[in-house]
């Protein structure tokens, strides 16, 4: 059971509390090296693969490896109960800390309770847990929507017709981002005509939906998309749609387009956090096990790049895959992977 203490956290730049009200935890110090587990849900997209590669790379860094007796990763697929069971199994097998990318933020109540009773440090990231009893390494999903909407509002001061490409229906991430966008638009008091289509965070799907929307609506004044951004731009190009301001995520392909077509009007805000947040989560878990003070909810800095600041070799990599998410570094936490070294790592090792 952690002690509730007052801040600041051990590494305040990295372990930034979510709000001023955020509690701080101090777990009883345990002697290392530790057994740490990562319970991932589904695995079959680039983001997740990149995340797992980052986790392995981070755990293998000499200073981190020295603190770890074991680092085990299990991916349980789409099914929430399977993930719950995996965490239960980790608890029963006596792991010191469990890191989770939760399939469903609200489903883990009983396991959180068990972990707490067993004195296990539970850290959630990316898809975090709806609880104050575990540590959340958090991305401000709603804030992301707000950011994109503000970007569009800045470029379209009079409002306009917007295409919003949404993610996977039924998830909280999609809903949060959507709400952020709409609340922000509403607050401007301008007239916004938002056409929503569903891209499912998938390039071909988003591309198709965008192409259809363009064929029927002919012209949009601005576009925002969560995931599938590369496909959305591709659809604009294919349809000869004029380039317009765009708020989107951080795929390398998207950023390539943003850099290339900025002059023609593709003014982008590209923001999000990369899969490297898993490293922050591991770091947090180790810190907690070492008895350091950590916030219950850690706010990850958004990696934001906006027009005209797209820099080749830093914000995007023209020769690399479209699919990976740039912004894989958290300098404030001393985590400085570049995406391509992550995705290439095993290749070199082999």
């Amino acid at each position, binding site marked *: 059971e952690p002690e509730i203490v007052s801040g600041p956290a051990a590494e305040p730049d990295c372990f930034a509390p979510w709000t001023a009200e955020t509690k701080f935890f101090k777990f009883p110090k345990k002697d290392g090296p530790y057994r740490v587990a990562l319970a991932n849900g589904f695995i*079959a997209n680039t983001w997740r693969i990149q995340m797992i590669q980052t986790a392995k790379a981070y755990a293998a860094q000499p200073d981190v490896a020295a603190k770890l007796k074991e680092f085990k990763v299990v991916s349980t697929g789409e099914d929430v109960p399977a993930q719950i069971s995996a965490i239960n199994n980790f608890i029963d097998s006596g792991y010191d800390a469990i890191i989770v990318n939760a399939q469903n933020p609200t489903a883990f109540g009983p396991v959180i309770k068990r972990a707490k009773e067993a004195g296990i440090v539970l850290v959630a990231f990316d898809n975090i847990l709806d609880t104050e009893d575990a540590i959340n390494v958090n991305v401000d999903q709603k804030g992301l929507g707000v950011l994109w909407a503000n970007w569009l509002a800045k470029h379209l001061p009079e409002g306009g017709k917007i295409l919003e490409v949404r993610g996977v229906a039924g998830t909280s991430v999609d809903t949060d981002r959507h709400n952020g966008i709409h609340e922000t638009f509403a607050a401007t008091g301008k007239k916004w005509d938002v056409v929503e289509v569903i891209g499912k965070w998938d390039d071909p799907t988003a591309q198709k939906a965008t192409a259809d929307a363009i064929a029927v609506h002919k012209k949009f004044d601005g576009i925002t998309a969560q995931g599938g951004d590369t496909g959305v731009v591709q659809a604009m190009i294919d349809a000869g749609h004029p380039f317009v301001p765009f708020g989107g995520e951080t795929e390398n392909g998207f950023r390539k387009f943003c850099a290339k077509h900025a002059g023609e009007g593709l003014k982008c805000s590209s923001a999000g956090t990369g899969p490297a947040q898993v490293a922050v989560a591991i770091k947090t878990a180790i810190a907690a096990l070492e008895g350091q003070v950590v916030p219950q909810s850690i706010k990850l800095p958004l990696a934001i790049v906006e027009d005209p600041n797209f820099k080749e070799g830093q914000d995007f990599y023209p020769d690399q895959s479209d699919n990976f998410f740039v912004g894989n570094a958290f300098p404030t936490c001393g985590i400085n992977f570049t995406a391509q070294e992550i995705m290439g790592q095993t290749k070199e090792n082999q």
Partner: protein
Amino acid sequence: MSEWRYWLNEQRGTLTGLAIFLVMFSVYVANHPAGFTANVVHTAANKGVLLAFVAMAQALVVITAGIDLSVGMILVLTNCLASWIVVGGAVPTALGVAAVLATGTLCGAINGALVIYGRLQPIVATIATGAVYFGLGLLLRPFPGGSVNEDLADALTGRLFGVIPSSLVALAAVVLLIWLPFRRSVAGRAAFAAGSSEPAAFMSGVPIRRGKFAAYLLGGLLAGMGGLFLTFFTYTGEAAYASGSAYTLWSIAAVVLGGVSLYGGRGSAVGAIFGAFAARTTGDMLFAFDVDPLWQPLLQGIVLMIAVSIGSLALLRVRNRLDWFQ
């Protein structure tokens, strides 16, 4: 042949399912860091029971030579519904449970009506109804949330006398109260008969429609129980499309592993339960063995491939090639 040989022959599929499960589970437990403890069994039981309900639902329909590609979505829909109404005191909770089960049953009845009275092919009819059920689930839960009567949930997902997982007890009760009577009923026999040979069943005056309808209907009920248990297990409702599809696909794998013939007429829901537990254990194996995380999905695929190929060993014994086509 003596009587027990007949029994063995009748139960061959189910026993194969049991054997596959036992082998896999022993290997799993033997390699589990915590070993064979009440906790480990409890965890495996809770996870297995969910798929077991869905697999039983699938088995009932498969026995009629049909297939239900909407079971996973019935699970999702009932989960979303339960997260709204299985709350509050004893009476509202009980009413909520009844309403959730009734909804599952209704979904099954719709599938049955389309297949039997609408004369649609089960594969496509249930692909379509699956979309509808998922859509309804999404209407109920545009994003994850809701709650459930936690006392009831804990009781049904906890342990009896500190050792026996109560979810297993619930599952056994369902087998006893639904499957066994069904199998012994005229409708149940009609379901088997229709699955084995519909023209012969018709000529024999078997109430085919009633039997098939009952199978679909009970299938919906069982899938609804799965949804209810999902809610008990997660305290929440979520319209997760990928998860619904995954349950559907794994339910097919489970019935095959459990010795239910996809051609109809043969198999038992008990076998499907073992199949479900075996299927779940393929995932658990990855936990017990130290497998590179990126290799896990591949390994699971290969284990599944091997498990479903086991049945084809019998083929080596076929000496009259015409027997291939039975």
